[in-house]
């Protein structure tokens, strides 16, 4: 017999070995050398967590009790792997493209990120899995108990209940520690766990080797070869056993569906899958594994029944047969096989459930309890890690408590199938979700609730036994006497096998509710979008490319960052990060810390919501939620408003700049005008002064005849007058231009004004004949008469100056129109050439023969200024034969308007 202490030592050693394996794998993966860890062999072996202790020990017991029916448990997954390969491939593709983290996440994402559905599936999974964890704890403690019994440990030569419970508790604690250590080490965005996967692959190999070893020993070592074994089988009750078709179909369906729906199976099948192509290997390798696992079940069962004393527990034949034969080493191997089966299942199941609990129950509630809109990248991480660790402990505790409550008895044995039937209620929503675009959230919810309820009523509650939860009366007459609601004869259909009955009705009503409600209701936009992405996943995603995660992702992030914050800055940021991580090159590992930092950096440029959505898209492949979109839209609107304001501002600045430029041009032009004006004045002043100086020099010199002296003195006199006139004109113009003219209002007939002007000019009628029409000039004007006279003088003088005709003539024509008086001065001189007409009213715009004009060219400029001050104007009338000016003014000037 084996010493109990040795067994404990071996177990501990094995556990330490698993720790090391897992630790080594994590280290390797962290260094980026995960290739070998992610081979199709490891993938296939990891699928073997389907084979739990229930399969390892229980299959023999099942065979011993119910014959070949145990095969259905293997046939279901085999058929799924072979026949439903398309569905698996689709699930894996969706899992990859949507970065699905669990089956609850799959359902939730598909139906518009529904928190309610995710939570529902999580609860369903916990209810369905907890008994199963309890079952594993039971099998481990039972197997330890077998050795304890044999080596006489414990009081009275065998284990008491307390010892069992203690062992179960220590096993549970150990498993919880292992799962927490390797399941929550890092929050890999893809929820992949290299260490755990390698550990369960090793365990898969151990359990297969153990079972095969026991089988070979039993057939060749105990029964004496293949022939005798077959003879033994023929002689046993198993040969008499006849399969019941409905139960076979039902069981194959349940196990196949469970293979897809169990949280732990989804974890290894989809979440931990690193390459779609591994599926095709697993497609034949996993059925082969199952075949090997089932190969010796019947021989062990038959030989066990034959060899072991009556009443021996067939569930422990795998262990007890070698023990009774004295094969201690083999027995320990078998123990390790069973231990492996139990622990690998518990670890993965706990991990998958903890992920679901934290992602679909804890985090959503936590987020809801916070003020909406807060950016939470850093905090969420802590919340997720802590909630996941606590969840692992709690789920393990639930399993332990369930084990204690159920008393660890035979009731547990039946719980496997009940769990299966509960978990597969997810199947319609899952299969419908990925194949039917019409499926929607309400339909999925209805199906889940109906299926879960029916399962609970027809299978889960009755499984505790008659009168345990449901009374015998209800079993026989239905609740409140409603006959058709009897738990095992729904709608009055009796005589079905209870399992088949429960599975049939729950699945039928579940699917029915799912389909009918989906048809009758409408999905929201996000559901439509997600529906299309899930159902047509092969159109939306790329082919069977392996997830060469970190490099590709880092590159994607770099490309995005470059677009947002600019090439140089982005590369600097990435390079600095890579240096910080001790890596050569410029692509760092995509760690959560780096993602957080990047998000903060990007949010400076595009806003927090946009940065979050963009990074989420790249790192977790999460669909952008409607909330995200709204936040992004808000942000964009703000940015646009800001840029509009900037644009408006810059338009304003443009206008201001233009105004300034125009003002500057005006000033420049004015300054040029001023220069030209000063230059003109200088010229106009210097010219007479030149004559004055020159002639006064000559006079001073003496020696000059009298005639000449008189003549030169005359010139000096004239030029002095010219200077005085010029200064007067300039001053006058300055006053007129400044607008501060003191008007001297008076009233007089226009004819008098003209008379005075003509007289003032002193024009000789022989030099210029002036024709007038006195009748028209009878109009009385009220204005500044002196100023008006000044204008008239100017015009008449001009006509006299330029009169080159043989008989020079000036016609003065007066007209009245609408309270205004117009006085035209038309001569028969050469007129003003058209090109000069526009500038004759400018200062110093003298016509060329200035000697004749004798003025400084200010006359018309002064006229125009005077008429402006009198509320009238003076214009040149072209094409009148000679020069023609029109003076027009109001007959009575409105002084108030000045």
């Amino acid at each position, binding site marked *: 017999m084996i010493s109990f202490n040795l067994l404990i030592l071996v177990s501990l050693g094995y556990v330490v070995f698993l720790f090391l394996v897992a630790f080594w794998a994590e280290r390797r993966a962290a260094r980026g050398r995960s290739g070998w860890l992610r081979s199709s062999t490891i993938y296939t072996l990891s699928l073997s967590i389907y084979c739990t202790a229930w399969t390892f020990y229980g299959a023999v017991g099942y065979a011993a009790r119910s014959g070949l029916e145990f095969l259905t448990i293997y046939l279901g997954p085999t058929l799924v792997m072979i026949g439903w390969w398309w569905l698996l491939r689709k699930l894996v593709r969706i899992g990859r493209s949507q970065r699905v983290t669990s089956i609850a996440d799959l359902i939730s994402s598909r139906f518009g990120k529904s928190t309610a559905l995710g939570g529902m599936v999580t609860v369903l999974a916990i209810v369905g899995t907890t008994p199963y964890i309890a079952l594993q704890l039971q099998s481990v403690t039972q197997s330890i108990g077998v050795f304890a019994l044999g080596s006489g440990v414990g009081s009275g030569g065998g284990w008491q209940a307390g010892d069992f419970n203690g062992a179960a508790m220590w096993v549970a604690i150990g498993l919880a520690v292992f799962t927490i250590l390797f399941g929550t080490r890092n929050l890999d965005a893809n929820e992949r766990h290299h260490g755990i996967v390698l550990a369960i692959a090793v365990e898969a190999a151990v359990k297969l080797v153990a079972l095969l070893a026991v089988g070979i020993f039993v057939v060749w070592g105990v029964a004496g070869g293949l022939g005798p074994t077959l003879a033994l089988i023929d002689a046993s009750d198993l040969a008499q056993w006849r399969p019941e078709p409905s139960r076979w179909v039902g069981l194959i369906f349940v196990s196949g569906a469970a293979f897809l729906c169990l949280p732990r199976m989804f974890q290894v099948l989809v979440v931990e899958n690193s390459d779609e192509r591994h599926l095709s290997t697993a497609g034949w390798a996993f059925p082969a594994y199952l075949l090997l696992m089932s190969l010796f079940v019947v021989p062990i069962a038959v030989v066990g029944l034959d060899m072991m004393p009556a009443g021996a527990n067939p569930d422990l034949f795998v262990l007890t047969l070698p023990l009774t034969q004295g094969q201690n080493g083999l027995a320990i191997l078998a123990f390790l096989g069973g231990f492996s089966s139990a622990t690998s299942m518990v670890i993965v199941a706990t991990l998958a459930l903890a992920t679901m609990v934290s992602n679909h129950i804890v985090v959503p509630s936590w987020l809801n309890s916070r003020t909406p809109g807060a950016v939470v990248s850093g905090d969420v991480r802590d919340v997720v890690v802590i909630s996941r660790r606590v969840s692992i402990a709690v789920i393990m505790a639930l399993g332990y408590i369930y084990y204690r409550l159920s008393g660890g008895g035979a009731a547990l044995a039946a719980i496997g199938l009940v769990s299966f039937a509960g978990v597969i209620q997810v199947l319609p929503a899952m299969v419908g979700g990925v194949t039917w675009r019409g499926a929607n959230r309400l339909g999925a919810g209805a199906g889940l609730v109906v299926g879960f309820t029916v399962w609970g009523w027809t299978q889960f509650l009755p499984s505790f036994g008659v009168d345990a939860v449901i009374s015998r009366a209800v079993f026989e007459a239905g609740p409140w006497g409603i006959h058709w609601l009897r738990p095992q004869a729904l709608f009055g259909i009796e005589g079905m096998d209870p399992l088949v009955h429960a599975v049939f009705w729950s699945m039928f009503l579940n699917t029915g509710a799912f389909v009918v409600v989906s048809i009758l209701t409408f999905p929201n936009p996000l559901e439509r979008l997600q529906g299309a992405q899930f159902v047509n996943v092969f159109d939306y995603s790329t082919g069977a490319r392996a997830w060469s995660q970190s490099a590709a992702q880092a590159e994607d992030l770099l490309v995005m960052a470059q677009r947002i914050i600019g090439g140089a800055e982005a590369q600097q940021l990435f390079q600095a990060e890579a240096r910080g991580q001790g890596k050569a090159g410029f692509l760092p590992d995509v760690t959560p810390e780096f993602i957080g930092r990047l998000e903060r950096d990007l949010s400076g440029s595009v806003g927090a919501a946009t940065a979050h959505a963009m990074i989420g898209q790249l790192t977790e492949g999460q669909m952008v939620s409607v909330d995200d979109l709204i936040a992004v839209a808000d942000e964009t609107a703000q940015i646009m408003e800001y840029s509009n304001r900037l644009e408006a501002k810059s338009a304003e600045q443009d206008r201001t700049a233009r105004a300034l430029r125009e003002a500057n041009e005006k000033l420049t032009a004015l300054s040029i005008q001023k220069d030209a004006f000063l230059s003109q004045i200088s010229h106009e002043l*210097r*010219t007479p002064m030149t004559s004055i*100086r*020159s002639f006064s*020099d000559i006079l001073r010199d003496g020696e000059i005849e009298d005639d*000449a002296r008189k003549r030169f003195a005359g010139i000096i006199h004239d030029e002095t007058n010219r200077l005085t006139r010029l200064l007067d004109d300039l001053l006058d113009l300055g006053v007129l231009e400044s607008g501060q003219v003191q008007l001297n209002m008076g009233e007089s007939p226009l004819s008098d004004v003209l008379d005075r002007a003509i007289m003032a000019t002193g024009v000789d009628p022989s030099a210029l004949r002036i024709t007038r029409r006195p009748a028209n000039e009878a109009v009385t004007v009220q204005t500044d008469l002196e100023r008006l006279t000044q204008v008239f003088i100017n015009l008449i003088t001009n006509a006299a100056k330029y009169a080159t005709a043989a008989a020079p003539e000036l016609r003065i024509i007066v007209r009245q129109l609408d309270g205004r008086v117009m006085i035209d001065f038309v001569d028969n001189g050469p007129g003003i050439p058209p090109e000069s007409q526009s500038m004759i009213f400018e200062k110093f715009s003298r016509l060329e023969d200035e000697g004749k004009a004798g003025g400084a060219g200010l006359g018309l400029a002064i006229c125009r200024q005077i008429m402006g001050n009198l509320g009238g104007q003076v214009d040149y009338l072209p094409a009148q034969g000679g020069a023609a000016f029109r003076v027009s003014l109001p007959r009575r000037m409105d002084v108030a308007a000045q």
Partner: protein
Amino acid sequence: MGRRVLLIEDEPNIIEAISYLLSRDGWTVHTHSDGETAMDKVRQGLPELIILDVMLPGRSGYDILRDLRADPATADVPVMMLTARGQARDREMAQSLGVTQFMTKPFSNADVLESVRALAAS
């Protein structure tokens, strides 16, 4: 007969003053008061010296000076410019065009005589 000087100027009183001044000094003074036809007048009979006003009707003194210097026949004739616009840039303009002597109005008769004599001697 005396030496010939051509005075191109449009202000009658200034023409009279300069003519009187130079005639008394023994010069034969030809006068012309139109810018447009000034070059023709020069070519009719090359003077020993040209006195040129800037602001002339028809064509400015600068243009006439440019033409004078561009024509080999007239390029060497000394030109004395008289202008009422005595700003620095007018002087620079005249010098860049190759003026021989630049003088602003009003001028002293002594200065004019002295310059004319100096130019004629050179």
